[in-house]
Structure formats: structure tokens, C-alpha cells
């Protein structure tokens, strides 16, 4: 996947090393190999590789990881914007 890089410095991924127990769950669920376990602590190897799918945060047993997960889809984001501005009442934004 190193061939494909998206925008840098945008991800909302954050790891709190204090809380981390080094269980390795984040390393095994991340589809972009963003994490690595080093000295029994998770480390973010490739911050910009993160696509904010949320698998790591969802599976961290001690809530040491936070990320705002979402659908990286323009149609979905436009509908969310319309909802914010009150132009659209529909409660469910549809994705692709």
C-alpha cells in the first residue's frame, strides 16, 4: 500500500502511550500497518498511512487510541454538510 499515499497531516488518530498495555490488538486489526509493538508498547509507525477506519480504537481494550472514524466518501460528506446547514432534514446521510 506504500504505493498509495493520500494527504499528509490530516488524520485524527491519537495514541496515548501511558494507557497502552502493548496487547498488540491495534497492530493486528490495522489494514495499513500503522502500528508496531516495541518494548511492549504500541508505536505509531506511519501516521499518514491512517485512513481513519476506526478498527484500532474500536478494539483497544484500554481505550488508549482515539480516532474520528468515518466514510471517506464525497457524496456522504456533502450530505452531512447539507444536514449541518439545515438544508436537508433527512436523518440518514446516504453513502455510495
Amino acid at each position: 500500500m506504500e504505493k498509495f499515499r493520500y494527504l499528509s497531516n490530516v488524520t485524527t488518530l491519537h495514541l496515548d502511550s501511558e494507557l497502552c498495555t502493548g496487547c498488540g490488538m491495534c497492530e493486528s486489526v490495522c489494514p495499513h500497518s500503522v502500528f508496531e509493538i516495541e518494548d511492549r508498547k504500541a508505536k505509531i509507525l506511519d501516521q499518514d498511512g491512517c485512513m481513519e477506519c476506526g478498527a484500532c480504537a474500536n478494539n483497544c481494550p484500554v481505550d488508549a487510541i482515539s480516532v474520528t472514524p468515518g466514510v471517506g466518501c464525497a457524496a456522504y460528506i456533502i450530505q452531512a454538510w447539507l444536514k449541518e446547514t439545515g438544508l436537508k432534514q433527512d436523518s440518514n446521510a446516504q453513502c455510495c
Partner: protein
Amino acid sequence: MKDHLDESGASFGKEPRLQPIFISQPDPSEEVCCGPPAGPPSGPFEKPGYKLLGFVDSFLQTQAGPVPKVKTRPGLSDVIGTVAVRLGIGRNDYKIAPGLYCIGDPDDSSPVMVTANYKLSFDTLRKDLEEVSAWVLVLDTRGINVWCAAGKGTFSTDEVIRLIKLTHLDTIVKHRNLILPQLSATGVSATRVKKASGFSVIWGPVRTNDIKLFLKNGLKAEKSWRTVTFSFVERFVLVPVELSLVIKSALWILLAVLIISGIGPGIFSISSSISRGFIAAMALLSGILAGAVAVPLFLPWIPFRAFSVKGAIMGIIAGLVVVFALMEEIQLVSTIGILLLTAAVSSYLAMNFTGATPFTSPSGVEKEMRKAIPLQAAAILIGISAWVIDSFINKGIT
């Protein structure tokens, strides 16, 4: 009753070995009267109001009731179905009933694989489980594939727990492990599944074609099986659906294009609507092909990271092709109009393609959209203006 050992030596508690019951056997002794011989009698699993599906081979009798055993080789109807959904036909209603299925000759120590009830996901899994004996737990993800369902919350922790209970999985297998596709981790929390059901989640590979290696490897996934890819073939299969999604809006835009192309010194001219409309329709088509076909296919080789920029580049190239092909009929002002329109259409469609890629973050998409949408809108407005102005400038030319 004596414990029964099967060929592999594994026993299945105090129950006799699971017996497959075949769906229907033709009876050769039927005598022929008028017309062709009568078909086989109804099988024990045919029920009023239900239809047996072609991919079901037989049923295994288990403590929790009969479990359909499915074929691993795709049949003709499976292949036709796959081609259709890849073209975008019936894609939103391509699902199978959730519940427990099995493959091969599983017993109480066989692995349990969990998947989505999108038939394409299920078909891919069973095809790659040829010669494997396993249980397949199909969740009700509303006919959505594993990763999208996990993102949308239908492939969820609660759904895994619900299906474990619904199918009485604990009476069918004596181990307490479930193999989940790694990409479902977005929706499933292994810790919560364990707490609520006693079953431990083992994250399987991203792609089903690594599943046999994963089983051989002692349920450990190598790094390359855990990482998503986006190869040319993987991008190629997405193109027909991308196109099918734009067709409807493209027809409305085409109508608008024909009307705008008719505007000129004589207020509206049908002949101009057709002749200039043809050029504008070609520009629209080339913009669509650039954004929905060329960008997905050539993605890694197009410069810049923002999809809207990649789209604009391909759009301008496509626009130049139209301009050169129809050079004799196009003036300078309309050339600017055509290039702005193809760039904007392609840029928008390319930006939309982010939703189909496995590596774009929503924060990034939103960031580029905030910059790109005003520019795309401006390009469309200036492009249309140029196109209309051109018809006034060239009123002398017929």
C-alpha cells in the same frame, strides 16, 4: 450409543457422526406413462413457501437442527449474479439468508468463519474454502459487504453476539473461537464479543484467498495478509459500478447541455442545439470517462495526491482529445469552455471515487472537498458562460 469416529479420528461427543441428507434423489424405477418421466420426489428439506438455493448441496443434521452444506464451486447462476452486481444491476438486493452454513465435512472441532450476507462476500469465501471443512456464520449485514457493513454498523459486535445465540453455535462446536475477517474490526470489538458470548475473536486475513494459508499457519496472519491492496484488477472491477452510478445524473446534465447549446443570437435554435449540443455532449462524456474510468485505472500514476487534482488533470487531457478531434468546429472561447467543463466533471467524479478506495481518510477527503468544490463550481459557471458567449461571437459563422 458408542462414540463414533470419522476418518480423521475426531469424535463428535455422544452423537453419531453428522450425516448429510441429500436434497433429492431421482427414482429410476418410475414408469413412463404419457409425456416425459416424472421428476424426483420432494426432498425432506423442501418446505411450503421456501425455495432451495442452487448453492446448497445437502444438509447436515446437528444438535441445533439441520445446517445447509454449501458447494464451493460457483454455479452458473452465481457467476451471472456476480457479473450483474459488478455492473451495478440488483446490487442493493444481493443477499442470502443470515444463519449457519457449512462447507466440507465439519465436526465440533472445525473452525467457524464469520462473514457478511452480501452474496458476493459469501460466494468469495466459499470458493476459497474448497477442500476445507468449516462452519460459516453469516450475519445479517443487510446485504452489504464486510468492510462497508463494519463502517455502517451492520457488521457489528451485537450482530455477532445475536447470531451466535440464534444458531446455538455453542452446541455445535466444542471450541470457543470465531474467525472474523480483519476488515470487520471497524465494527466488531473482540473484547465485547468475548464478554457477551464466551467466544474469542481471531482476526483472519483481509482477502479470502489467503484463508487456507491462514488455517495452515495456525491461525496467524502474516503482515501481507493483514494489509489492504488496491491493485489494477481491484480498481478495474469498480469501474462499471462507478459508471452505473453516474448514468442517471449524466442524462439530466445531457438535457441541460442540449438546452444551453441551443442558446444563441436567435434566442434558441434547434439546429444549434443539435450541432453544438453534440460537441458539448462529447465533452461531457469525455469528462465522465476521465473521472470515472481513467482516474480509477491510472490512479497511482497520475501526479498529486488529492483526487480532485488527479481528476482535473485527466479531465483536461480528455477535453484536449475532444478539442483536437472536433477542431474544425471549435473556436478559442468554446475551447476554454470545453476544457473547464471536462476538468470540473472529471475532478468531481474523481473526488467521489475516494469513497471506493481503501486508503483515503475522511478528514483528508473533507479537507480537499472544501478547496475543490468552490473551484469545480466556478469552472462549471465560467465554462457554461464561455460556451454561450461563443455562440454569440460566432454568429456570423454557420
